[in-house]
């Protein structure tokens, strides 16, 4: 038997994906339902000379991750709703100071302490707008163990390529369910290393001067280019600057480097979506139920399809607009009060044909619930 085939939880697959991507630093704080990530990496990192630390809270966890990343290590933290709230300030710091890092949020019911052991997708808009100030962010998700592995690797690749925090939004169901996973061989999936400056020691290095493609080569702490890193508005030296020209350049760079690449960062799966009269749009655990519904309807000859989103931010507006235009009706299936439905209605040409199919009681939205909603949308009653 191939030893690389394993039966893993989503959270464990995230650990494997992170290690495959080259993770060498993890800081975290225990919180349900994400704790398996910390426990897994506490065991796995020391034998490969990686660093693991349990911090005093989630604030400290993300701060430690950012500090470690500046020395050149690929770094990650993992949490759930309440911890994600505490991390928002440091997420903004990572955006502003352009520090690569991955933040995993295994979503549970909220608000507040909410339902620690139950599933939810309630943090989708928090991932987008949780930290203060105008900014752009990248957030991925996954609906099965194999994709958790793949999207974890992709989260590191985007983070390292574009010097930005990347959020991986899992949920309690995907985090805790077990599926077969074949760990890819080395080289099978691309693993991106961050861009390092080639500027010689004797020449001034500008850590915040973007190249034409928007990427910024880094110089690590401990190397010979000493520079300043700050959360204040700054100039190309990384020194605090509040002159309008510097601030304007910085703001457009920070937002543009992400939002101008929305389709480059877009990952999705079409499940018989090309000819669908009724298009379901879903992601994470709820996409599994939506897929089951697609199969049921197709067996009866109804043209129902599913667009499964794996990139939530930047929102793949062009993709969603195009798919919605092909369908007569669109139903967004999610476990919140319509956080992605709102985005779909925003980009669809006819928002009145976009319906929300949701469940927010702590249980996984099941095929029967979706089935019933679709019958109403079709005008067939219950």
């Amino acid at each position, binding site marked *: 038997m191939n030893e690389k085939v394993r039966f893993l939880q989503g959270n464990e697959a995230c650990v494997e994906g992170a290690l495959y991507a080259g993770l060498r630093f993890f*800081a975290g704080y225990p919180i349900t339902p994400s704790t398996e990530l910390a426990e897994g990496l506490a065991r796995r990192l020391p034998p490969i000379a990686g660093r693991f630390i349990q911090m005093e809270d989630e604030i400290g966890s993300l701060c430690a991750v950012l*500090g470690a990343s500046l020395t050149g290590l690929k770094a990650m933290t993992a949490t759930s709703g309440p911890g994600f709230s505490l991390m928002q300030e440091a997420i903004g710091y990572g955006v502003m100071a352009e520090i690569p890092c991955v933040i995993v949020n295994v979503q549970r019911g909220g608000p507040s302490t909410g339902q620690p052991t139950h599933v939810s997708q309630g943090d989708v808009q928090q991932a987008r707008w949780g930290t203060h100030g105008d900014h752009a962010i990248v957030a991925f998700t996954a609906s099965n163990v194999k994709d958790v592995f793949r999207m974890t690797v992709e989260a590191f690749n985007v983070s390292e390529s574009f010097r930005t925090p990347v959020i991986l939004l899992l949920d309690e169901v995907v985090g805790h369910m077990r599926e077969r996973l074949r760990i890819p061989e080395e080289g099978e999936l691309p693993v991106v290393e961050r861009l390092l400056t080639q500027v010689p020691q004797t020449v001034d290095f500008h850590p915040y001067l973007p190249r034409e493609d928007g990427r910024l080569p880094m110089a690590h702490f401990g190397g010979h280019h000493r520079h300043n890193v700050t959360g204040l508005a700054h100039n190309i030296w990384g020194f605090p600057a509040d002159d309008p020209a510097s601030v304007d350049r910085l703001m457009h760079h920070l937002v543009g480097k992400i939002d101008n690449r929305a389709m480059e960062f877009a990952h999705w799966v079409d499940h018989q979506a090309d000819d669908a009269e009724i298009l379901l749009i879903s992601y994470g655990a709820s996409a599994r139920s939506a897929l089951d519904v697609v199969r049921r309807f197709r067996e009866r000859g109804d043209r129902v399809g599913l667009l499964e989103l794996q990139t939530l931010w930047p929102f793949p507006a062009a993709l969603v607009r195009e798919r919605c235009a092909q369908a007569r009706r669109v139903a967004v299936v999610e476990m919140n009060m319509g956080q992605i439905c709102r985005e779909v209605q925003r980009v669809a040409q006819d928002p009145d044909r976009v319906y929300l199919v949701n469940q927010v009681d702590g249980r996984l939205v099941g095929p029967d619930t979706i089935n019933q909603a679709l019958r109403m949308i079709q005008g067939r009653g219950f």
Partner: protein
Amino acid sequence: MATLDYVRRRFLPHIWCPGCGHGTLMATLVRAIEELAIPKDQIVMASGIGCSSRIVGYLDLHTLHTLHGRALAFATGVKMAKPDLHVIVPMGDGDALAIGGNHFIHACARNIDLTAIIMNNQTYGMTGGQVSPMTGHGERATTMPYGNLGQALDVVAVARAAGATYVARSTVYHAPQLKKLLMKAIQHRGFSVVEVLTQCPTYYGRLNQRGDAVEMMTWFKEHAVPVGSDARKDDPARFEVGEFVNVERPEYCASYDEIVTRLKPREDEHA
């Protein structure tokens, strides 16, 4: 290397008010580093938010100006990732002990090899003179206009109780002593804390009728007594300066590296 070689002259003048004590601390800290002859590439200086924390921008080191209260958490990540680097963490009193109090206690308890410098001016200077954890009972602040209801936190006692393995206090008046204590703190293998009293004539001094910078420094001179001195019995305003704690305990990163070494697969296992 000359003292000015440690300064990013490109980014001067600094933002501190005339008479502020922070510049004296910066100059003393640079002289301590210079005397220890630590290469600039091997020093990371991480600070938080406030007047004190702007020190990092002016120094030609690897510098990290973090979030309010979070300097020690960022520094912990840096140190864990690259234990060979010297990591020095200058913070203000509110920064280190109000918003950053939790990180401070746990950095002490871990005994991770960081050098925490608490620039204690007994107020929030950047925001204009609000009450800080180090403001004394009855003293004035813009948010304690009728006198502080609380008591000044004794950072030396907190650091000792939490497990810091090097704890010292000095003032910007006592610059030669301060330099020696900073040198010992940087060399100490473990978590070290140096509290430095520094004057804020603009806010704390003005609100409490402490006079100008010279008068405030003179007050430091007249009220500082050596650690263990009986002179404090005569005048409760007197405070001890010098070394309070200097002990050896396992350092966090060193303990981690022992585990890494123990777990490393031995070459001969595959033979």
